[in-house]
C-alpha cells in the first residue's frame, strides 16, 4: 500500500478496498522499520495518526467523506506549525516556532482527509541545500545512504522516496523543494509566489518563500496543489488569482507547446550524465509533439544574486534573536550565513527588491513571448557524498552550497512555478532530474508537460532497494 500513489490510495479507500487505519498502520510500520537509518522524521505522531485514521474510518462507515485525501497518510516539513506538535525548524530547540494559527497548507490537507504522520527532517532553519542536520541526524538518501538527500526539505523527499508517506509538504526559498526532490528521485513543485499560503510556516525570507507539494508522480503533486492553492486571508502575499482544475488539464498532451532549453547558464559546469539526461528528457517531450528549441535567457546569475541579497537580509532579520542569544546552538555554516546577512546594508536590500521587480518584468515578457515552458537541470550533479556537505572549512562549505543551488535560485527570485521531475539515474545509481518552469500562475502547463513526460517514461516507478 505504501507503494501506491496518493490518488490510487484515495480511490481504493473510497471504494472500500482498504481502510485509513490499514494505510496508516502500514506507513507507521515502515517508518519504524526504516527511519532509524533514513532520518526522514524529526517526530512521528503515531498515536495522533492512528486516532485520526480511526475517526476517518468511522466517518467512512457513515458515508461521510472529508475530501479527495480521505485517509491518505502525509507528512509535513518541521517548519509547518500544527498545534500539539513541536516545530523545531531543524534547530536544537524543539518548539522553536510557534504560530497563532495552524499552517494553512497543512490544515487544508487535513481538512481534505489527510492523516498527518508527523514532522519531517530539514536543514537547520531551512538554510542549506544538502539536507545535513547535526541536531536531528543527517537525512539519508534512500538510493545511496552515504549521499546527501538535498535540502532543505530533506525529510520530505526521503519520506516520499522511501515510501514512508505518500506525499509531503516542503518549502522552497532557493530550491529547497526541487533540490531534494531531484536528489531523491521524486517530484517536487515550487508553485508561483503567492499561489500557496505561507501562513503558519516558519519564514526564512518572506519575499522568496514558497510552500509546495512533494510526491512520487506529477499527478499526485497536481492533486495536492489543488487542495492547498488559493487565497488565504492569513497571508497578505497569497494571491487571489483563481485556482484552475489541475487534474482536468492533465492528459491534454503537449502537442504544439513551445519548450525552451536554455543555451546559457543552466548547462555550464553541469555533470555530463546530468546534462545528457536532461537533454534526453527534452527529446522525449519533443517526441510527444512539443516544439523544443534552444533559447537565450536574460542572465539568470543576476537574478540569483538579487535573490540571495534579499534572502540573506530577511533570514538574518527574522532569526537574529537565535543568532545573538544562543549562537552556540546554531551549526557553524548556518551561523556564518546568518552573520553575513547582518552585513548587508538597507540600501542594498532595498535596491535588490527594486531590481527584482524590473528583472522579473523583463524575464517574463521576453522569455514567455517565445516559449510556454523551460526545461533545465535542477542540480548540477547527482547527490554528492555526505562529506561534501559536512567536511571542510566553513567558507568552503558555504561556497559548495551556493554552487549546488545555483540552478534553482533564479526562479525563486522570479517567483515562477518550477517542477522537478526525475529523468534517470547516474552510473552510480543516483537520481537525475530536470525542472520545468512556466509563466506566473501557470502551474497547469508545467504539470501537464511533466505528467506527459511521466506517462511516456518509467523513471518514477523505480524504487530504492530498502527492504
Amino acid at each position, binding site marked *: 500500500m505504501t507503494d501506491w500513489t496518493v490518488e490510487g490510495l484515495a480511490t481504493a479507500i473510497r471504494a472500500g478496498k482498504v481502510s485509513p487505519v490499514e494505510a496508516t498502520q502500514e506507513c507507521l510500520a515502515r517508518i519504524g522499520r526504516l527511519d532509524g537509518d533514513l532520518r526522514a522524521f524529526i517526530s512521528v505522531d503515531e498515536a495522533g495518526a492512528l486516532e485520526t485514521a480511526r475517526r476517518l474510518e468511522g466517518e467512512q462507515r457513515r458515508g461521510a467523506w472529508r475530501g479527495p485525501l480521505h485517509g491518505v497518510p502525509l507528512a509535513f516539513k518541521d517548519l509547518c506549525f500544527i498545534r500539539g506538535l513541536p516545530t523545531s525548524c531543524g534547530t536544537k530547540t524543539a518548539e522553536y516556532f510557534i504560530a497563532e494559527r495552524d499552517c494553512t497548507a497543512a490544515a487544508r490537507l487535513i481538512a481534505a482527509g489527510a492523516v498527518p504522520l508527523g514532522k519531517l527532517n530539514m536543514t537547520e532553519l531551512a538554510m542549506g541545500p544538502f539536507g545535513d542536520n547535526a541536531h536531528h541526524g543527517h537525512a539519508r538518501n534512500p538510493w545511496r545512504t552515504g549521499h546527501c538527500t538535498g535540502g532543505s526539505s530533506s525529510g520530505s523527499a526521503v519520506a516520499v522516496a522511501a515510501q514512508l508517506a505518500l506525499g509531503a509538504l516542503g518549502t522552497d526559498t532557493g530550491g529547497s523543494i526541487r533540490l531534494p526532490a531531484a536528489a531523491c528521485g521524486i517530484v517536487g513543485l515550487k508553485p508561483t509566489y503567492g499561489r500557496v499560503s505561507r501562513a503558519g510556516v516558519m519564514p526564512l525570507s518572506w519575499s522568496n518563500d514558497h510552500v509546495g507539494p512533494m510526491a512520487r508522480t506529477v499527478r499526485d503533486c497536481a492533486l495536492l496543489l489543488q487542495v492547498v492553492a488559493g487565497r488565504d486571508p492569513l497571508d497578505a502575499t497569497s494571491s487571489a488569482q483563481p485556482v484552475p482544475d489541475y487534474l482536468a488539464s492533465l492528459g491534454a498532451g503537449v502537442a504544439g507547446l513551445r519548450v525552451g532549453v536554455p543555451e546559457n547558464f543552466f548547462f555550464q559546469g553541469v555533470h555530463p550524465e546530468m546534462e545528457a539526461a536532461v537533454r534526453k528528457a527534452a527529446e522525449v517531450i519533443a517526441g510527444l509533439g512539443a516544439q523544443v528549441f534552444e533559447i537565450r535567457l536574460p542572465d539568470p546569475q543576476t537574478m540569483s544574486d538579487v535573490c540571495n541579497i534579499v534572502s540573506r537580509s530577511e533570514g538574518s532579520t527574522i532569526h537574529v534573536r537565535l543568532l545573538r542569544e544562543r549562537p552556540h546552538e546554531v551549526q557553524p555554516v548556518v551561523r556564518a550565513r546568518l552573520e553575513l546577512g547582518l552585513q548587508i546594508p538597507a540600501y542594498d536590500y532595498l535596491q535588490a*527588491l527594486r531590481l527584482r521587480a524590473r528583472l522579473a518584468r523583463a524575464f517574463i515578457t521576453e522569455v514567455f513571448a517565445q516559449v510556454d515552458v523551460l526545461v533545465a537541470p535542477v542540480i548540477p550533479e547527482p547527490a554528492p557524498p555526505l562529506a561534501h556537505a559536512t567536511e571542510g572549512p566553513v567558507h568552503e562549505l558555504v561556497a559548495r552550497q551556493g554552487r549546488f543551488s545555483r540552478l534553482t535560485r533564479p526562479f525563486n527570485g522570479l517567483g515562477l512555478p518550477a517542477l522537478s521531475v526525475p529523468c534517470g539515474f547516474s552510473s552510480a545509481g543516483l537520481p537525475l532530474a530536470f525542472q520545468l518552469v512556466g509563466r506566473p500562475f501557470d502551474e497547469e502547463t508545467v504539470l501537464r508537460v511533466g505528467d506527459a513526460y511521466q506517462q511516456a517514461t518509467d523513471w518514477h516507478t523505480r524504487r530504492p532497494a530498502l527492504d
Partner: protein
Amino acid sequence: MEESRAQQAEVAALLGVIERMAADLALAEEPSRFIAALEAGRAAEGEASSP
C-alpha cells in the same frame, strides 16, 4: 581570520550586482511592482500556444 576575510569577500561579491545594475533604476521602480509583474504575466497567458 580566514573565515572573516572569506565572509567579507562574499558580501562584496554579492553586492556587486547592486553596484552594477541599480544606478539606472527608474525613480518609479518599487518592490511592489514584482507582484504586479507576476499578475500581469498571468494575464498575458492567453497569448500562449495551446494544443
